[in-house]
């Protein structure tokens, strides 16, 4: 569909532009302002140049060491949950029923974890995984394994990963399910006539058709896991020690806990910049695949 050029369309976009600019640009300006100043308290600020940024990007400094630790921890977490949730989500989508009353039931049950407030997700896993009152913790301890997610960092990580898989795999599965539904029956019939194996059908028909939704699933899951805050905060509070202190938790500790405005602002900006770059890469790849697909179909 060709679109007409009309700059008056800006009038229609203006309200959105104003509201988002109010909630995005204005606060970011405050952050920029803080990031180049230092304070002795009493609301007296003075110019500090790029000193906070130098501290932040130097791993040998206290602030930098803390930042890079949280960054690697967060990247590792994102990598783990992507490696689990994407294949599992595809598998679940392939196993979804196609017709009958089971479709509606499966859809509703799968979507349920997505609509639970994030702190309640933390609470649910807290009461589920505790050794004394939780079914999971009690069960694992009964099996003879020593499990304590508040004391042992491996157990804390495992619990948070399983919690995230529980919380978000359905999103990947629902996206893939929608992608699968858009495949016409004729494709499958052709494959059957050709005697294609189940694997060949998956490789050559289903996977390519799911490409776009998978890209979006990876993007969303990466972004959301990269800024995860509430669930681990409720479950472990970032502990034991700093074992599960991800970037957002660290940032909130710095900004609202210690009220270290300059350091927190510098960290916010770098954090935001990383997100912006990743987002831009995905956006470019996505529009690129769209364009090449349109060329093929034309």
């Amino acid at each position, binding site marked *: 569909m060709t679109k007409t050029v009309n700059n008056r369309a800006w009038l229609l976009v203006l309200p959105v*532009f104003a509201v988002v600019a109010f909630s995005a640009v204005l606060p970011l300006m405050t952050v920029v302002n803080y990031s180049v100043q230092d304070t002795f308290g009493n609301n007296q600020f003075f110019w500090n140049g790029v000193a906070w940024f130098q501290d932040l990007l130097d791993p040998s400094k206290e602030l930098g060491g803390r930042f890079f630790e949280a960054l690697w921890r967060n990247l590792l977490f994102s990598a783990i949950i992507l490696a689990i949730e994407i294949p599992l989500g595809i598998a679940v989508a392939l196993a979804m029923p196609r017709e009958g009353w089971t479709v509606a039931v*499966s859809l509703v049950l799968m979507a*349920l974890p997505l609509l639970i407030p994030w702190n309640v997700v933390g609470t649910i896993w807290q009461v589920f995984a505790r050794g004394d009152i939780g079914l999971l913790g009690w069960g694992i301890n009964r099996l003879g394994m020593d499990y304590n997610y508040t004391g042992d960092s491996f157990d804390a990580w495992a619990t948070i990963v399983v919690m995230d898989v529980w919380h978000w795999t359905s999103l990947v599965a629902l996206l893939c399910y929608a992608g699968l539904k858009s495949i016409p029956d004729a494709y499958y019939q052709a*494959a*059957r006539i050709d005697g294609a194996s189940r694997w060949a059908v998956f490789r050559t028909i289903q996977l390519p058709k799911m490409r776009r939704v998978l890209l979006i699933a990876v993007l969303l899951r990466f972004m959301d896991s990269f800024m995860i805050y509430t669930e681990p905060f409720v479950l472990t509070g970032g502990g034991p020690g700093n074992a599960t202190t991800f970037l957002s938790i660290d940032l909130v500790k710095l900004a609202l806990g210690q009220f270290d405005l300059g350091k927190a602002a510098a960290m916010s900006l770098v954090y935001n910049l990383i997100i912006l770059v990743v987002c831009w890469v995905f956006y470019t790849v996505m529009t690129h695949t769209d364009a090449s697909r349109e060329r093929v179909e034309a």
Partner: protein
Amino acid sequence: MSDTALLGPQEAQARTASVTANKAIARPWVSGSTVVMVLYLLFLMLPIYWLINMSLKTNLEISSSLTLWPRQITFEHYRKIFTDPSWYGGYINSLTYVVINTVLSISLALPAAYAFSRYRFLGDKHLFFWLLSNRMAPPAVFALPFFNLYSAIGLFDTPWAVALAHCLFNVPLAVWILEGFMSGVPREIDETAAIDGYSFPRFFIKIFMPLIASGIGVAAFFCFMFSWVELLLARTLTTVNAKPIAATMTRTVSASGMDWGLLAAAGVLTILPGALVIWFVRNYIAKGFALGRV
């Protein structure tokens, strides 16, 4: 529906190997897909079952022994939530800002999505990317500046502060979803309406909006969802009057230890609105996801 594509690998092999074989062998009673699905749904439901189980027990039973179902069912925790204003007020506060946010996001996003789906204009691609990038911005970055901003303009501790703050990610999302649905409506409809003498606002409300009604429903669903589940900003921007239920739940920690039963009951009650909304839009969920736009 084609059969082969839906069968598991073993079954497909069995079929091609011996078509004349006994049907019971070629098509097992339970397929691999069903097993995967049942296991996955069990995994999803187990923690929720445990939460409901806890909410119906007395605190004595919770702390003294581990029981798979309540020996002595009590509705005491629920009764407390529904009679104590500081508890049920939390639910009202949460629902207030979620509804304000959803209405605000959709009404702002409708004209903008129309512009993106119908016209090219100066900087449209950059603007679209900038909007989207805000959907991805970490709330932790915005917590402190929002606190300053809304204190300065006197909206702090009102539902409006939270509703406006949530617009940061919900407005871009609504634009994205609605743009997809609008692009599916042929342009000829716009042109015909213009020839018939419809003014733009009348055309938009009378003709165009009914055409994308399901899209508006899907967008509203996702706005509701993301505003309902967010806590970091909602908690930072409120103290007493507009405190969301999620923040109220921290009250269960008291001097005498955790009130687990009450916490569980409050948790169960936060799941209900989501479950209701899903039930109403269940037929549209797949459609919304089908656009690949969440």
